[in-house]
């Protein structure tokens, strides 16, 4: 249930953005989640809704889209797409991947009323 701690960080970020823009109510939040985070969208939506109760984000819709993963090969320097279960470099055949994308969680947009 790492979604709970991610949702707590997300809510903190969202409320900070809303406060910056003097928003009174947050209607929608969109995030991009790296596929390697293994975030279950339903779980983060639920955790966010629970934590948002009593804040300006109460009742806000959270939209989650997945970010694909990319890696750089430590052996040959090639950059390539990886999936959660395969990290083999197509150029040299080694699985010595330094992850470039796919681990981050990005807050994209906040829709709010001011």
């Amino acid at each position, binding site marked *: 249930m790492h979604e709970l701690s991610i949702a707590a960080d997300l809510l903190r970020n969202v409320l900070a953005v809303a406060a910056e823009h003097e928003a009174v109510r947050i209607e929608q939040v969109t995030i991009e989640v790296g596929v390697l985070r293994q975030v279950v969208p339903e779980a983060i939506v639920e955790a966010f809704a629970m934590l948002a109760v009593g804040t300006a984000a109460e009742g806000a819709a959270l939209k989650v889209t997945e970010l694909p993963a990319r890696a750089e090969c430590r052996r040959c320097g090639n950059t390539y797409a990886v999936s959660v*279960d395969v990290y083999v470099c197509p150029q040299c055949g080694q699985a010595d991947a330094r992850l470039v994308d796919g681990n981050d969680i990005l807050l994209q*947009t906040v829709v709010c009323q001011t």
Partner: protein
Amino acid sequence: MKITVIESVLKANDAVARTNRRRMDEAKLLAVNIMSAPGSGKTALLEKTIPAFDGHLRSAVLVGDLQTTRDAERLARLTAQTTQINTGQGCHLSAAQVAQGLDSLDLAQIDLLFIENVGNMVCPAGVDLGEHVRVALLSVPEGDDKVAKYPTLFQPADVILLTKVDLLNVLDFDRGRVRDDLSRINTRAPLIELSAKTGQGMDDWLGWLAGRRAERIETAV
């Protein structure tokens, strides 16, 4: 009003992790993040690892658990520098919790800092604590299919320990399957087979650890 933000939600954790790493760099210690399922033998491994370095390298432990101080009580017998971090509902250690833990230790008196993460194969893997190396454990009773099932734990590992190998002759466990799965997930980390109970393979693990510690000293100079 639609506000476009595009910033990392994890930036708060990652910033604290960078501070942790800098503090531990300055103290010239090697920070080792140990991750596995509950019951893979993380604490038992440390119970054999810490005394093996007695008089040579000074160890300290930050140990994370949802509840109880049982692991800390076991490890406090071996090093006075042991701090239990109870995460409550949290399924992994965070960089901020480690930062608090570091405050409770005398970093100048530590060569090896073991951070025993909360037993969990998914949640701790994506969270940077500021460690220098990552250790992933897989115990024989868990089954030979776990590398493929939990790739994100094993992919970033710097060393993978197959623990409780004294049970290989009583359980159906195919070591070939583990190696085959690792060929797709992580060919960089050495796979060390060991048993903390019998001592088999412990020298390989201790040697690996001493090697990383020596590298750290070199880069710190």
